[in-house]
């Protein structure tokens, strides 16, 4: 009984927030009218109907493919570079302000450059996703290594472990929770990058659907795609957050 009460308390808060968000949405809709902002019910209905069409899933698959490639590159590249800069203290101190600066740069402005280098299509989308997602994962990994207990590395040194073994056996397991936390931020930014990429440089994908609907003034489609993306992002974020919490408690 007690456990049930606890679970209810745990779900109560988010539920209240959800209800409030839907209410605000409904009120806004009533103020500006359905030509400007679809009602929650209408949006859900349209999304449900959209989920039944082949065309929508073709676009989802296209975005998913670009997101998959971009995520793999961001995570692998971010961890590899993060380890390299974290192990070498001097290199890390030199690089950090440069990285933070790049992170706070509005990367949309670099979009023309990416297009000119990669051309239209998949590679430009992936590159744009990686541009957004790589740096946060890199910085999290690097800082995790710098804050690692020095005794780990000293032990490894005493055991005369070769560098590759130190990284695989000691460094990576020790910083795993921080890597997951970095991935949570990196995931949403990579997705953002891929979507923005599709908005400008693609004839397929959810980002293209959005631009197309924007040009047609089709607010219903915009809202449905936005709802789909929001739910997907929240789901993935929730899973990573749960993994993050479990690892922190270890």
């Amino acid at each position, binding site marked *: 009984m007690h456990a049930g009460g606890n679970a209810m308390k745990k779900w109560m808060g988010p539920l209240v927030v959800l209800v409030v968000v839907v209410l605000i949405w409904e009120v806004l809709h009533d103020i500006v009218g359905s030509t400007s902002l679809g009602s929650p019910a209408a949006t859900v209905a349209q999304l449900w109907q959209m989920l039944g069409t082949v065309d929508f899933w073709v676009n989802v698959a296209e975005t998913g493919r670009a997101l998959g490639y971009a995520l793999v590159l961001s995570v692998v590249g971010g961890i590899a570079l993060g380890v390299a800069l974290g192990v070498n203290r001097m290199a890390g101190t030199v*690089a950090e302000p*440069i990285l933070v600066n790049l992170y706070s*740069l*509005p990367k*949309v402005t670099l979009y023309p*450059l990416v297009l*000119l280098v990669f051309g239209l299509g998949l590679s430009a989308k992936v590159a744009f996703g990686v541009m957004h997602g790589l740096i946060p994962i890199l910085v999290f990994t690097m800082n995790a290594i710098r804050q690692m207990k020095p005794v780990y590395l000293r032990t490894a040194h005493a055991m005369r472990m070769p560098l590759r073994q130190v990284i695989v056996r000691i460094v990576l397991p020790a910083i795993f929770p921080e890597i997951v936390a970095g991935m949570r931020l990196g995931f949403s930014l990579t997705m953002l990058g891929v*979507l923005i990429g599709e*908005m400008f440089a693609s004839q397929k994908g959810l980002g293209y659907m959005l631009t197309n609907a924007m040009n047609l003034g089709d607010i219903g489609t915009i809202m449905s795609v936005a709802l789909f993306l929001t739910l997907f*992002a929240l789901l993935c974020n929730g899973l990573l957050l749960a993994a993050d919490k479990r690892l922190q408690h270890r």
Partner: protein
Amino acid sequence: MVKKETGWRAGVVIGFVLLIEGLCRSGVIPVAVMIAPSAMFLHGVELLREGRYLHDIATSFANIVAASVVAVVLGFLLGLTIHALPSVRRSLEPLLASYYAVPTFVFYPVFIVVFGVGALPIIAIAVMLAIVTMITATLTGLDRIPRSLSKTARVMRLTVWQSALRVKLPAALPYLFSGVKLSVAYAFIGVIASEFILSGSGIGYAIGYAYNNFQNDDMYALMLMVLIAVTLINVVLNRIDARFQARRQR
């Protein structure tokens, strides 16, 4: 010690710029893709002297300042309110943790409809992007006020206002400033990115316009200006931040 790192950092940046300069001059990077950094800089100086984009620069700058101020003040006040109401805070916690996972920019078209065209939707989007980090920073700052300080204030029989202004605010200030720093960065990204996507003025728009009209020299000169502006803002904010952090550790 610090001098050495700064030297290395300057070396890395200068080396990178020289490398690109060399690649551009030798034709490895064609002129159609990217113009040489020196050419970008000279063209940028020329543009500033002609005053062709001064209006766009002023517009963007005003929007960024407005969005930063609104996000910081409102975020701080909301943070104070949420901190005072623990039950509200518990329900909002999941929302705050997953806020940045939602690709906010998919709601741009909705914002145009609600706020009309002009500066207002752009400032609104930038505030939306920047405010949550300020709320989180305020909550962290208030959480980290040492209990001994609050107790001392009570022992000295300070009034509520005196203890808030003389004790709590200074104690939370380093955390608050980290929030300010991030808020300004996000406001910058929000303003430039939405100008790029949906506006008719501002630096973001000017870059998009130059790109569409194949004016590579204008485009790269403006990009370089954005890069320099971000770097300068970061350097100043980091200076102030470092001073606050040093005070915290004392």
